[in-house]
């Protein structure tokens, strides 16, 4: 009986495992491998192996871009999570029916194509756009202040794009949270804020971790957002990869950059997952 159950488990996981291997593992390995091939002058992959692309990673332009990529991703992820916590807390405390309506409203933007929404931001922030004129009329900004084509614009649009992805997992945790615990903490002398920080935040830890992963990883690979609302001074690694692929037509160079980005995400994620696995084994007494 037990053996049969095990067999079913294996059979049932074959499709998803197959999917992962074909569309994730193999492409990742290919990308890493390609980084060590020579470039073909016509934009393809040339013959033989070389470290030329790896050497190209020392390009003096890269450190600034990598640094910008990291801080934009970290800051936008932090803003998304900090903004999503109170939103999720309040949604979770509403009546179930109203919760569903608000969650629907959070998802509604996804009914419009991502590219169109980003272009809408471009129109919105444009030097001749409505928002800019409003700021000038209200004397908040000069007529020659630039809203668009700066890292700030990229940051705002990344936060806009990924905020729902932060709200959903945090809401899922907040919804399961036992709010009696807040009362218990206050009963023991904690102020509302202390109770929130010491009991609620650890209580939704799982949701916060999920939100971090879901927002940070795509933000790190952003390409369309800096491409559309960012200027030359707000490029991210994603923009560089696209440039190497489509403009320079140098696939090995693009692959080397992609591989670095992929490894930067996979290695820490893998390490924390194995640690989690060992921890679980220990507590389960295996």
């Amino acid at each position, binding site marked *: 009986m037990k053996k049969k159950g095990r067999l079913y488990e294996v059979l049932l996981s074959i499709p998803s495992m197959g999917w992962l291997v074909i569309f994730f593992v193999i492409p990742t390995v290919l990308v890493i491998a390609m980084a060590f091939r020579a470039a073909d002058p016509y934009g393809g992959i040339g013959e033989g192996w070389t470290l030329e692309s790896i050497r190209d990673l020392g390009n003096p332009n890269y450190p600034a871009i990598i640094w910008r990529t990291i801080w934009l991703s970290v800051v936008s992820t932090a803003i998304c999570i900090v903004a999503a916590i109170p939103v999720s807390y309040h949604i979770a405390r509403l009546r179930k029916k109203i919760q569903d309506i608000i969650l629907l409203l959070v998802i509604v933007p996804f009914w419009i194509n991502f590219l169109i929404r980003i272009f809408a931001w471009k129109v919105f922030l444009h030097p001749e756009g409505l928002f800019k004129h409003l700021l000038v009329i209200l004397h908040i900004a000069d007529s020659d202040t630039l809203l668009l084509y700066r890292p700030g614009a990229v940051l705002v649009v990344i936060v806009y794009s990924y905020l729902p992805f932060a709200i959903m997992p945090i809401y899922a945790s907040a919804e399961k949270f036992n709010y009696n*615990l807040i009362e218990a903490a206050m009963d023991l*002398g904690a102020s509302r804020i202390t109770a929130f920080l010491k009991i609620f935040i650890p209580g939704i830890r799982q949701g916060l971790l999920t939100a971090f992963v879901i927002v940070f990883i795509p933000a790190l690979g952003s390409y369309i957002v800096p491409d559309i609302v960012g200027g030359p001074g707000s490029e991210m690694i994603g923009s560089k990869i696209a440039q190497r692929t489509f403009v320079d037509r140098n696939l090995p160079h693009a692959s080397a950059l992609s591989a670095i980005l992929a490894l930067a995400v996979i290695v820490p994620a893998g390490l924390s997952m194995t640690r989690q696995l060992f921890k679980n084994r220990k507590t389960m007494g295996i």
Partner: protein
Amino acid sequence: MSDFLVFDGVSKSFGSVKVLDNVCLTIKKGDIFSLLGPSGCGKTTLLRICAGFEEPDSGRVILEGHDITRLAPNRRSVNTVFQNYALFPNLSVYENIAFGLRLKKIDPRQIRREVDSFLELIQLTDHADKMPDKLSGGQKQRVAIARALINKPEILLLDEPLAALDLKLRQRMLVDLDNIHDEVGITFLYVTHDQSEAMSLSDEIAVMNNGVIEQTGTPTQIYEAPRTSFVAAFIGDTNFFEGDVVSVKEPYSMLNVDGFTSVEAYNDKMIKTGERVYLSIRPEKFTITINRPETTERTNMVQGTVEEIIYMGYHTKYWIRVNEYLISVKRMHDRYMLDEKMLTWGDPVWLSWHADYCYMLEQYNLRDEALLTIPDEEIPDESGSNDTADETDSNDTQGADEAEARP
């Protein structure tokens, strides 16, 4: 000193539902005071008002002379043991207990000493580093109590603290609670729907129903001298009779109970001839005999037949049919098998009881009859407690005509 905690005319409504109606209570320092009543009677709301989680619509809460009605929960010297424990799942047993002290920012060495001594008090020293989800129900309960007591509150609120435990553990925890109370000497305000818990633990009990205090008194007063039909029916079991006063011979009076017999009853309520009264007679006050008992002064007697017998171990419940009445009788039997003829269904028997055992009620409500146990619904339960929430539901429709068939 004697007016330690006072609820002064506390009322509270949720929407259109009035859950507390002008509640006045005085609780003495060092007592275990119980709020006893069926679910939905408002007892938990009163506790939450005391803890500061709810504000009353009107009325005041006074603790040692200070009005604490609008004080935030974290500013009151009041701590709560929650019904579902509410232990912090992200903190170890040790840190759960230390939580209140850590907030006060006192010397860590002193925290260590205090927590250790409380761990010892609840006998969980070996479990200090465990997380709450690794504890059993009884252990969680003890941690919750220690976590509240370590703050040295003026008063400890306990909200159905034993409801989630099984019977044997509940009985053990009752003893533990009593010992802890003796040790720390803090006033306990104890909310429960379980009459046996309240009776065994409390110095004083307030019986609540529909947001109103029906009666306050010691367990003996509540049981022996119930003021209303609700108290009589909710605490233990009883029989109700309704009759006219025929004659008064202080301090006793003769009543004519319709369709039953004339009954002599102790008259402490100054009832006059011609008035209508309601009597409560507890099932264990009756004596059952097969032969007609000797007539003695102040003894009432009536003849009936055995309708139902339920053997419950240390006692037996009988249902005796007298005309349209079905009378509940409880009987301890110390030598059941030896020199007593066993009664069986349909046996003619005599019931006799002393006039002092007829207790006159000040207030009578027909719906309280639904609280009485009737033979078909009887489920043997050695604790003797009855979950009234379920019982009122199931008895609501048939209760009036079937229970205690009243002419």
